[in-house]
């Protein structure tokens, strides 16, 4: 009974429902989140059951959405904001970076900013411009924000509730191409810590670190490598700010090799930070330099090229081979 098989989309929907039920101060805000239930239906049925005072269709204005969410948080509410697609968060970037992120520090800790910003992100759905981007680094770089991304239904369910419970602003990146992937959710479990990493597959020869949509690719790569006799460990980072370096270090100390995989451009990306830190922490354990697989220093390409652009099985396995060749 407690364990259900849900898509990530349904797990998120259930999670929001639970949050609305548990705390009357929780609000959902965004474009089309009401009657339509959001363009991905993540808020499906919530306005019907909780009313327009709790599930709020907003004007088409992202700066307005985040700016008013800040005001509502100042008044004691806990807004959960939906940005329709990754590329449309930028009109709100000013509010997020100059206001939301700094309010707690500026008020000497007197003001809390329990705002969650949900963003369906990353590629692989054949969309037009601005619907496939991975801007997580731009948020992880900003002190005061926390940045997470679930890769499976259970994490989707639990991490979203934990994010809503957090008194810090959390940028919650949802891997949109995995929305329809199913997984088991134990709604009575004691969840992992929001910012801890998780070993998604154990291995001994090399560690693959990923988050969000790339975890599945890495698990497939690990399975393929196993057929060639290579034992690949996969770490699901889950959080990009903070990053669980202790967990990752423990894995790398076991395997002595690390490849970081993400869709976002490699240059100055989350992988760059991980490569630097893990090199500092594990210099004497490493048998090879930390390698990164990810997007290029180029705009996200038109849909017909995204399969080439996105890291797939082959590119991940190529990096595994290069690492093992050292």
């Amino acid at each position, binding site marked *: 009974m407690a364990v259900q098989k849900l898509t990530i989309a349904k797990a998120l929907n259930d999670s929001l429902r639970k949050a609305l039920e548990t705390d009357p101060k929780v609000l959902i805000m965004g474009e089309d989140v009401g009657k339509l239930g959001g363009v991905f239906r993540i808020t499906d049925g919530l306005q019907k059951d909780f009313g327009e005072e709790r599930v709020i269709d907003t004007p088409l204005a992202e700066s307005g959405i985040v700016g008013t969410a800040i005001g509502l948080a100042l008044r004691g509410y806990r807004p959960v904001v939906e940005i329709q697609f990754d590329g*449309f968060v930028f009109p709100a970037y000013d509010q997020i970076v100059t206001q939301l992120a700094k309010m707690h520090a500026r008020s000497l800790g007197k003001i809390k900013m329990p705002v969650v910003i949900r963003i369906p992100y990353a590629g692989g759905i054949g969309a037009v411009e601005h619907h496939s981007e991975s801007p997580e680094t731009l948020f992880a770089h900003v002190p005061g924000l926390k940045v997470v991304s679930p890769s499976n239904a259970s994490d989707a369910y639990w991490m979203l509730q934990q994010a809503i419970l957090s008194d810090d602003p959390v940028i919650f990146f949802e891997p949109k191409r995995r929305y329809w992937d199913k997984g088991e959710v134990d709604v009575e479990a004691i969840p992992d810590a929001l910012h801890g990493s998780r070993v998604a597959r154990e291995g001994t020869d090399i560690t693959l670190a990923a988050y969000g949509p790339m975890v599945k690719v890495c698990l497939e790569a690990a399975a393929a490598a196993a057929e060639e006799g290579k034992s690949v460990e996969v770490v699901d980072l889950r959080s990009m700010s903070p990053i669980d370096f202790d967990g990752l270090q423990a894995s790398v100390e076991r395997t002595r090799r690390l490849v970081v995989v993400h869709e976002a451009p490699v240059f100055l990306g989350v992988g760059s930070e991980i490569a630097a830190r893990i090199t500092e922490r594990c210099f004497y354990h490493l048998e090879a330099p930390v390698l990164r697989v990810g997007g290029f220093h180029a705009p996200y390409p038109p849909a017909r090229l995204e399969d080439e652009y996105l890291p797939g099985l082959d590119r991940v396995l190529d990096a595994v081979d290069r690492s093992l060749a050292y």
Partner: protein
Amino acid sequence: MTVESTAARKPRRSSGTKRAAGAAGARKTAAATAQPHDAEPQLVQLLTPEGERVEVADNPDIAEFAPFVADITTDDLRDLYRDMVLTRRFDGEATALQRQGELGLWASLLGQEAAQIGSGRALRDDDYVFPTYREHGVAWCRGVDPTNLLGMFRGVNHGGWDPKINNFHLYTIVIGSQTLHATGYAMGVAKDGADSAVIAYFGDGASSQGDVAEAFTFSAVYNSPVVFFCQNNQWAISEPTERQMRVPLYQRAQGFGFPGVRVDGNDVLACLAVTRWALERARRGEGPTLVEAFTYRMGAHTTSDDPTKYRRDEETAAWEAKDPILRLKAHLLATDGADEAFFEQLEVESETLGKRVREVVRAMPDPDTMAIFENVYADGHALVDEERAQFAAYLASFEGGE
């Protein structure tokens, strides 16, 4: 709008609302009452839904605009009709191609042909257009080959035409951004002492964006020669105009210090007249104008959208009776402006266009993989060069190997 807005005027609280904390929940907030939205809004109309010409004597409010189409001949009317029919045909073909998997997405202009052809045909060649993503009819008027519009919806490029050839900028998907580009371009036109004008297209939803308010501010204070042409098609995906504004949109211009006009967006003649009027003001150095073309999106927002989740069939049916193409057809028939041969020939022309669109789209090649690295910079960039070389070597490692 009528049904929706009466319902919204009496805020009712559902059971869920009661759970909202105390006093805040007791006052209307999210369910704010809508301004009684004009059931029959005041608008500039020159051709009734039945296809009859409105005379100035019947409606003195149109006196200012009617002269701007005084020169329009029956031949011109047939041309406008042809533009609308072919645009609709192209649009319908694109929708069908999306259903067949040839396009990833399509944003249909069905129902908005008059607003686009009327305004598009008001433009001079040296005017400059900043569209959003649904302006296929305006593109048609600018002479952009319609098949060029399909590349970005097929996923082979992010644009597909050279904006400078037809003075028709690339489609802009981020809502409202282009209104500022139009304003800046218009500021440049004024600095150059040129007498051309600039037009920016956007939707009713877009009017909520800060960028649009900033465009209004800049264009007002710099008295820029720009026409803001808002197609109020009543919906921003699932959100009705009541979710964007409390006063009729065109009235907003006044607060920024320039005129706003609401025109019947399903009346091609009125759209032509009002846009010409606004462009003339711009050319004369009288600054910006906001034109609100009151119209309706007959189809889904895009092919990914399901309008049955949020709007009523009765509403759509009511707008069907105001169809821009049928209206002009009725007028042409009643005035002997066109004969059967004209309509038959246009049908043949439509078929030919449809066939060409299908053929071109199906033959559209996927881009070369290395195109990912092209045009990232105008002057080149060492990192891009390095990544391009690495990726080429990686791809080459598959050839011959396995």
